[in-house]
């Protein structure tokens, strides 16, 4: 069953260093297509590190790999992804008159990708 969670986009060290090497290089693609997830949430969904998951927002959907984090570091229900084309694909263009789309609090459904 898909579960609804909150996705936060942001920077990371590896996202920054791999960005310098190029956005079409393997490391940047890997970094920007990995979602960090609470380890207990992952266990409930039957997921382990490196498993593919589908994230779906009102604006689009992407497939990414998941990586577990402890509850101390990432509370249940929260997801973190390094900025990149995939995080943007889930973002809406509406800005509520501010110029800024919501990119640090995107409601997504999370679903393991079978096979």
């Amino acid at each position: 069953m898909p579960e609804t969670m909150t996705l936060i986009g942001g920077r990371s060290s590896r996202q920054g260093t791999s960005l310098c090497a190029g956005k079409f290089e393997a490391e940047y693609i890997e970094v920007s297509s990995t979602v960090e997830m609470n380890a207990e949430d992952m266990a409930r969904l039957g997921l382990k590190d490196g498993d593919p998951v589908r994230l779906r927002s009102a604006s689009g959907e992407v497939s990414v790999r998941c990586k577990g984090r402890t509850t101390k570091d990432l509370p249940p229900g929260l997801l973190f992804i390094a900025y990149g084309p995939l995080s943007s694909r889930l973002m809406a263009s509406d800005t509520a008159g501010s110029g800024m789309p919501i990119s640090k609090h995107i409601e997504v459904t999370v679903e393991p990708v079978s096979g």
Partner: protein
Amino acid sequence: MSDNIRIINDATCTFCGCVCDDMHLTVDLDAHKITKAENACVLGRAWFKEHGIDEKRPFALIEGREASTEEAIEASAQILANARFPLIYGLSDTTCEAQRQAVAIADMIGANLDTTTSVCHGPSGMAFEGVGESTATLGEIRNRADLLVFWGGNPAESHPRLFTRYTVTAKGMYVPNGRKDRTVVLVDVRRSPSAAVADIFVQVKPQRDFEVLWALRALVKGKRVDPNIEQVTGVPLATLEDLAQRMKNCRFGALLFGMGLTMTRGRHFNSGALLALATDLNEYTHFVAKPVRGHGNVTGADNVVSWQTGFPFGVNLGRGYPRFNPGEFTSADLLGRGEADAALIIAADPGANFSHAAIEHLKRIPVIVLDPKLTHTGKLARVAITTATYGISVPGTVYRMDDVAISLRTALPSPYPSDEEVLTRIKERVRELLGGNRVPAMGAA
């Protein structure tokens, strides 16, 4: 390593808004590479290592075909001269000198001018206009701040030397023992790697920053706050009371805030609440607030666009005079609605960073891109021009995140032209094609 080595002292890193100007670079002139960047953080080392001269890059591409810079300038000028609603966007990773030329083109053709600030601290810019800013340079914070509150950001990964050069561990005139003389607080929705440097970590429920800031304002003023605040925000009242007292009792406090405030519900209201808290605290002590800025010269873009148009971003010059209206003239909105019939993108990658609707519109219109590297926007562009990297091959001026202007020192000669040179030549050719400004000045016949 060859024998043809050159040492460049006091060079500047333009990867992030810290703009550290104490880099000592070792340059291998035969290999066209920077082999060592002393004093650089992990991000700076990658920046210098990966921006050697790649002579395999074509000078330009027009509809995917290799072309000369001259041909690309002509094609760009034709697109801009014929556009009815052109957008000029980006500008946060280039020099102030190039930014000036972009503003001049916008003025000439009546373009919509916007920078990456609109999807960064644009909401904070709106809050400055509404609330004001109790500000300081990073040097003042380094030398004086005994309380540092980082809010909604993760400098350990995004701005590593903000901690070591300017704030947490830096020794200063009135904080001679550095870290021991400072109290460090981190407020965030997750325990990011920055929590490791904090004495106090305050974990807020997502989208509840505004409520926490408003409660702190009340506590600072001695007002009662309902203990139910913990159910709303996830932060116990006692934690907030302790933080409010620390803020009032410090000698010099600094709130350094990130996009955890601007990219979530509330946006400019969140930034405004934090700026108002800093102002309130000046009733009791000295307190300042600074947005932590991302790109190397995004602060320069704010300054250049402000001093030339009166507004920092999201400016439309279509009527011959500048109008500022976030939501209408900001690029994420404008492209998302399918507006603009041409785009000139300088040193930015909306083709990767914008919404799907905005990217689909960019695919429908003629796009011109200036960038040292191949980007997603470069792939969808009609004209892509390779330019030299600022701070490595291009001299000029950039603004640090605290609005301090810093001169760039070059390390590697590049066969590619600078953004400034390309934009200047596009401007001159557009002027020839239009015979002057497209939009007459106000009052002209």
